[in-house]
Every structure is written in C-alpha cells, then in structure tokens.
C-alpha cells in the first residue's frame, strides 16, 4: 500500500505524504527518493499536509535528502507542517535546515 505519491516535474519532485512519516515507511520512501535523485532531481518538496506524526526516522530521511541535494547545490522544502511537528522541528533546530513551513490557518488536520 502506497502512503505517498511522488510527482516529478523536470528537475523537481513533489512528495505528498498520505499519512505519517515514521519508521515503517522509511525504507520504501528512501529507495524511491534515491532513484529520483539519481535521475537528476535538484529540488524536493515534501507536502506534510496529511501528516500527523513525524518520528526521528522521518526526520533522518528529510535530513538525508537535504544532505544529498546540498551536495549538488539543490534545494528542499517541507510544506504544510502541523503545529505539533513544527514545534518539534523548532525544538530540534531543524526548521531552517529543512526549510519547513507550517500550514495555513484553517488547514488543521486531526489524527
């Protein structure tokens, strides 16, 4: 069962999570991202609009993607982050590194 979609537009890929970004999902998503990066993706956008939970494995995947893109002067954004996840990323001092932005008001999701 796919818990994400990857939409490719030239050298950009949009990763839309359909649920949580946690340990069980990581191996599959990591392999898919690696394939896209090898095929020339220079910008990755993660849409966490439907994501309630992000654990340290999910954070690790975002940082690994960011590191890979930085090596080829690419960039990354993490969009529609829930308030809980945004607070977590702020506490871990990762908001700037991951270029993370919260959801617009009225876009709150409940788990």
């Amino acid at each position, binding site marked *: 069962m796919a818990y994400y979609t990857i939409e490719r537009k030239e050298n950009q890929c949009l990763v839309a999570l359909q649920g949580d970004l946690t*340990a069980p999902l990581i191996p599959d998503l990591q392999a898919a991202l690696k394939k896209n990066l090898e095929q020339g993706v220079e910008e990755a956008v993660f849409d966490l609009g439907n994501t309630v939970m992000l654990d340290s494995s999910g954070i690790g995947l975002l940082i690994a993607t960011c*590191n890979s893109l930085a090596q080829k002067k690419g960039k990354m954004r993490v969009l529609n982050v829930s308030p809980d996840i945004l607070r977590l990323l702020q506490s871990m001092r990762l908001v700037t590194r991951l270029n993370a932005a919260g959801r617009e008001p009225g876009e709150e999701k409940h788990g």
Partner: protein
Amino acid sequence: MKPPPGMAGISLHREIRSHLAEVDPVCREIRSLLEDNGQAAACFGVELVAREWLNNAIVHGNRLDAGKKVALNLRIGRKWIYLQIIDEGPGFDWRKARRASPPDDTVIGGRGLPISVLYACRITFNQRGNQVSLWLKKESKGG
C-alpha cells in the same frame, strides 16, 4: 514480560513481535486511550516518545529478531502519563547516550533520546539498559 505492579486503573499493556509494522497499531491504541480520557493535547508527545522507544527496542534492542518480544506499559495517573518499554535484547549504554551532545543539523540519526527529553519530565533506565521508563506531564483540566 508482565505489567509492573501498580498498573491498575487506566492502563494499557501490549506485547508485540519485533516488526516495525506492529508499532502503528499500538500507537493507535495509545492515541485512542489518551483521547478517551481527556488527554488529546498530550497525544503527540506520548505517541512520539512511544514510537521512538518501540522502534529502538525492535531495531537496536531485539535486532529485528521476530522471536523476541517488546512490551509496552502505559498508565494514565493522577498527574503523570507513565510509559515503560522493555525489550529482550542485551541493553544499551544509556549512561554514554545521556552524556552525548544532540546531533547537529546534518546528522541523520541519534535523535531518539533528545526527542524524549523534550517531552518527558523524567526518564530512567534499568541497569542493563533494555527497559526505559518515562513520565510525561498530563494535560491539566482546561489546559
């Protein structure tokens, strides 16, 4: 692995096999239990911390050995939400882990304990390092 003494009241005891796929159902139960008992605001922190230690117990503790179990005990007390996770592995050097600095923003791993420290007021380990106990603050009435 039996639930510890004093786990009466609003509590949850689960044992799972060492598969990461077994973490999600337990976390859904934790979320439901907290929501049903007026602790919706604590859900994110409790679930996140539970995930971190369940994942650790499965991957690093039991080394994905399907024959080994991981036990979780959760209790909603008067002031605290108590969480305990036990694996059947050799344990880890929690003293060394506690002394380590948080990883910088390019490091991929090593955030399980720093995340737990963010949400839990107290964290203790057994001597061997295969059992962790965490106390998280309960949501106060109207808070």
